[in-house]
């Protein structure tokens, strides 16, 4: 009888933990071997209806990459370089041979992003703002894909969460009035989606780069293996 009870307990636990188990851990072996120092972010391909989505996601992407310990090339200047060379559409930029990118920027890697959702247009039941992004990190010295991931963030998660975090950071400024005219809801949510996607502290995010004090240490999903 006791055995039966134990069996039920064990199975129950297994089922419950199965429900919450995270997606498979990313295999970082190639990433670790390539050991990149810097990232150039390409303009994201925008599959959403929102025209500003590309700009918004792009400008929020540097912080999580830099905080993970990599050098992030200046986002807007890189975008200008592409424009000045006649590449005004993200799809065209993504088609540039990696060797050419390496030649111009001298970056170890490039981040190719795609925006799947941005804004509220497709949400029927609520007015939540949702941002979904996917990305892959390509080694510009070899063309190899070192890492890829996707993430979503929604305004529904942040409701009632005052102060702290990225949203809190937006409010601190002495130049609040200027900011009010610049930021929009999607811009805030893009910051959360990008941090979830890329930050080395996030599950299946980037590795720690050479500028991080945790450089070389295992990341979250590697520890759980």
């Amino acid at each position, binding site marked *: 009888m006791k055995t039966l009870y134990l069996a039920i307990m064990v199975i129950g636990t297994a089922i419950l933990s199965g429900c919450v188990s995270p997606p498979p851990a990313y295999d970082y072996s190639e990433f670790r071997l390539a050991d990149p120092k810097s990232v150039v972010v390409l303009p994201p391909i925008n599959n959403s209806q929102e025209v500003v989505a590309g700009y918004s996601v*792009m*400008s929020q992407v540097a912080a999580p990459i830099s905080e993970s310990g990599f050098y992030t090339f*200046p986002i807007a*200047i890189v975008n200008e370089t592409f424009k000045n060379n006649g590449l005004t559409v993200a799809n065209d930029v993504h088609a540039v041979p990696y060797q050419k990118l390496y030649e111009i920027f001298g970056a170890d890697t490039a981040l190719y992003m795609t925006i799947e959702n941005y804004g509220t247009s497709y949400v029927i039941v609520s007015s939540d703002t949702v941002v979904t992004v996917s990305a892959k990190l390509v080694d510009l010295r070899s063309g190899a894909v070192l890492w890829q991931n996707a993430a979503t963030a929604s305004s529904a998660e942040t409701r009632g969460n005052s102060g702290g975090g990225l949203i809190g950071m937006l409010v601190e400024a002495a130049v609040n009035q200027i900011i009010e005219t610049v930021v929009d809801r999607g811009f805030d949510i893009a910051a959360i989606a990008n941090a979830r996607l890329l930050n080395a502290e996030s599950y299946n995010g980037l590795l720690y780069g050479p500028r991080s004090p945790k450089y070389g240490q295992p990341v979250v999903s590697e520890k759980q293996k």
Partner: protein
Amino acid sequence: MKQIQRLLLLLTTAATLSACVTAPKPLYYHGEQAEAVYSYLKADDLSISEQILLMEQTMQNASSTGLPLAPGFHAHLGMLYFESGNTSGGIEQFEVEKSLFPESSKYLDYLLAQLQGSDAK
């Protein structure tokens, strides 16, 4: 025995609590860098001089936090200075970016060479 139990309980509680509050210390001060980049890319709501103000304000706030400015900050401010006609300020900021982050040297040198090339014409 009771004492050991109590110690264990204390340790577990301490571990749990500290796990809750240790947010990793940021490497950089980001301030309004993302907002400045966003408004530059959108190019419709802030003038270049307003964007410079936003960046200079961020630079001031950074010094009070003791954290360094993030990658790309000085390069972006430099570009804004160039666009506003302040060439020496632009060159200075590019040089700061290069010395803080040598990873950027090749690209920024390429841009500086282009700028000088267009001046000579």
